[in-house]
């Protein structure tokens, strides 16, 4: 089910929107919460609409619009989004008022915009897109499920092109609550030194990354998504390794064919050990790079990694911020993204030059 990544649009804690030079000017964050660098929405979305939109809706809609513009497609055949937490800000607003006002005198706007399909629906509404529209809300599989849906739609011939996005936001309340679960580092320092800390916990992130996928190439298409696989709650690292090995053999490739592995290390000593095991056993001596020091950890962070893989292939550049030891890099034609979220949701994405 090979498909073409025609265009991308990405709002993240890095300078990614508006297609600046690829990760040439990494943004340093301090603290354990990486917020998105947001564009001036007035140039992208009707000002009357902006006023009613929460942050995640604006980020999602703007990233989707940039992606469609780059692809020169006015209305896609289908829109599929993935979001683990959905519209947290509006959910929080309605919940707070409901509790504080004891269920009285509530306004509908926050409730209306709290549903998980709000971003996908707003995109459809703005584009007058009557096509297939679906929303996946499955934790660390949300974006992967959306991608699989798009791959099936293209494979079935139900769509010629599909707009796929991964979106999640941090709010003050969500960050406070998730911090109480002990997920984040107490003294994170700079995100750019995330992997030098050797301590417990990670840093929180958020983002909105969209992709225009198509079954047939047009002139300038040069990146393909060749394969996708997910596995759930492996019992141990051996099972993880065996899943990865069967994935490679199912697509008749060996570790030697892969030029670069992008791993989802997030700086947490405990869960990063899974990547160490995998790299040592399956990908010994392979180049690997990380991405969560740039975007932080969140359930749909793989969408940032896919954006990065597509851009590495397209630009032929491995930015310095990824290549910290300055290793000589040969031409990168095949990238494997391996990510896991809390050792529960594991995913593999194979991206190639074509």
């Amino acid at each position, binding site marked *: 089910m090979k498909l073409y990544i025609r265009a991308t649009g990405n709002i993240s804690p890095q300078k990614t929107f508006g297609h600046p030079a690829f990760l040439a000017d990494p943004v340093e964050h301090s603290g354990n919460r990486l917020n998105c660098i947001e564009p001036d929405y007035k140039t992208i979305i009707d000002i009357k609409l902006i006023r009613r939109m929460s942050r995640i809706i604006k980020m999602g809609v703007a990233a989707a619009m940039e992606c469609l513009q780059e692809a020169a497609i006015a209305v896609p055949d289908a*829109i599929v989004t993935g979001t*683990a*937490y*959905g519209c947290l800000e509006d959910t929080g607003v*309605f*919940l*707070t008022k*409901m*509790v*504080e006002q*004891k*269920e*009285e005198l*509530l*306004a*509908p706007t926050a*409730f*209306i*915009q*709290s*549903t*998980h*399909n*709000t971003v*996908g*629906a*707003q995109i*459809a*509404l703005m*584009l*007058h*897109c*009557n*096509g*297939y*529209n*679906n*929303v*996946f*809300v*499955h*934790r660390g*599989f*949300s974006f992967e*499920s959306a991608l*699989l*849906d798009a791959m*099936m739609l293209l*494979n*079935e011939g139900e769509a010629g092109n599909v707009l796929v996005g991964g979106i999640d936001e941090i709010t003050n*309340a969500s960050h*406070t*609550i998730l911090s*109480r*679960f002990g997920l984040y580092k107490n003294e994170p320092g700079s995100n750019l030194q995330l992997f030098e800390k050797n301590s417990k916990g990670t840093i929180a992130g958020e983002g909105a990354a969209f992709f225009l996928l198509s079954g047939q190439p047009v002139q300038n298409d040069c990146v393909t998504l060749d394969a996708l696989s*997910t596995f*759930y*709650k492996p019992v141990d690292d051996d099972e993880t390794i065996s899943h990865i090995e069967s994935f490679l053999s199912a697509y008749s490739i060996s570790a030697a064919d892969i030029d670069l592995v992008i791993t989802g290390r997030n700086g947490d000593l405990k869960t990063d050990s899974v990547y160490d095991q995998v790299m040592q056993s399956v990908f010994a001596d392979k180049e690997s790079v990380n991405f969560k020091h740039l975007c932080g950890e969140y359930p749909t962070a793989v969408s940032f990694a896919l954006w990065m893989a597509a851009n590495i292939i397209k630009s032929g550049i491995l930015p310095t911020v990824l290549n910290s030891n300055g290793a000589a890099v040969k031409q990168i034609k095949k990238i494997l993204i391996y990510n896991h979220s809390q050792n*529960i949701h594991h995913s593999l994405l194979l991206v190639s030059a074509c």
Partner: protein
Amino acid sequence: MNAPVFIAGIGAISAIGNNAAECLTALENGEAGMGEMRYLHSMHGKTLPVAEVKLSNEALAQRLGLAAVISRTAMLSLMAAKEALEDAAIPDWKSLRTGLISATTVGGMDRTELFYEDFLADHTKGKLRDVVHHECGYISELVADELGIRNYVSTISTACSSSANSIFYGARMIKNNLLDVVVAGGTDALTKFTVNGFNTLMILDHEFCKPFDENRRGLNLGEGAGYVVLVSERVAASLKNVPGCRLSGYCNANDAYHQTASSPEGTGSYLAMKGALEKAGLQITDIDYINLHGTGTQNNDIAEGTAIMRLFDPLFPKMSSTKSFTGHTLGASGGLEAVFSVLAIREKMIYPNLRLQTPMNDMPFVPETSLVKNAAVNHVLSNSFGFGGNCSSLIFSKT
């Protein structure tokens, strides 16, 4: 890609019964499940009727052998999903590629709203165990883990059409040869969040709802869960009891009109029904029964009715809204109504649309007002339309 997908098992829990058989009995006897709030504690308890599952959290937990602090959404889901898997009786399902595709709009909100009361007063307070299952996907994982499903787990949330989408996503995973068996459907528990949310939209009826009545005043919220077990042709052929029903058509379209209101022409609904017929290769005259989305709001019923008129006029099949029994169960409704559609085929029965007194002026058709028995039900069209313009239709066909 065009291989058929069969329904090998069904499971349901709603205000009219704790399993599919009990729900069927209530549908036959015309017994609606609405009433005064008993298990949900809301200040609207006396004024807004709801269709609650008639089991407390403690009773549900006891039946399932779980702790009562788990989200009600997960417990309802497990009740129905377990029943569906047992009904399918696939001896070797654990050795097949089996997945769970669930759907929900509220996830663990019933516990989150408890947490929030303490949390708002002091951010270091509130029991974390009450918020740990907030995410929709967590609800599905609690169920998958209890059932022992590991190959594939996912969750869809497209408002009121959520579980229609999970059922047809599951069928497509079988057609794409990614899975052999899929437990698919959806779940939602009543929460203060949804009751208050719908109340702000002023679309809740203060009496029992009257879908497709000229004098309808809104919907009643309900809760429950409904799941079907979808199997490939190969698995179906290996079963002792050959499945009597298959999912023959499906389509998802977007109304792209308004975040909460449906377009007057019912564009999304029309496209979803039309697309499902095309997918199934059926003519409008092949449909014997439409299980309506039929919420009872002014806006939904006129949009859905208009779409039906555009597609079927003048050859209208029999139709009814079973939300007049179960209330609107949101993310569970597509799953529950899928179960009712399968039962309509199996039992040769068309359910009444309760409390319909004055048919809608602008519509040239009238839904069934009493039970039809010994009906030839070969093809059922089931509609699920939601906020965000998300419209999906499914077609179930006798094999």
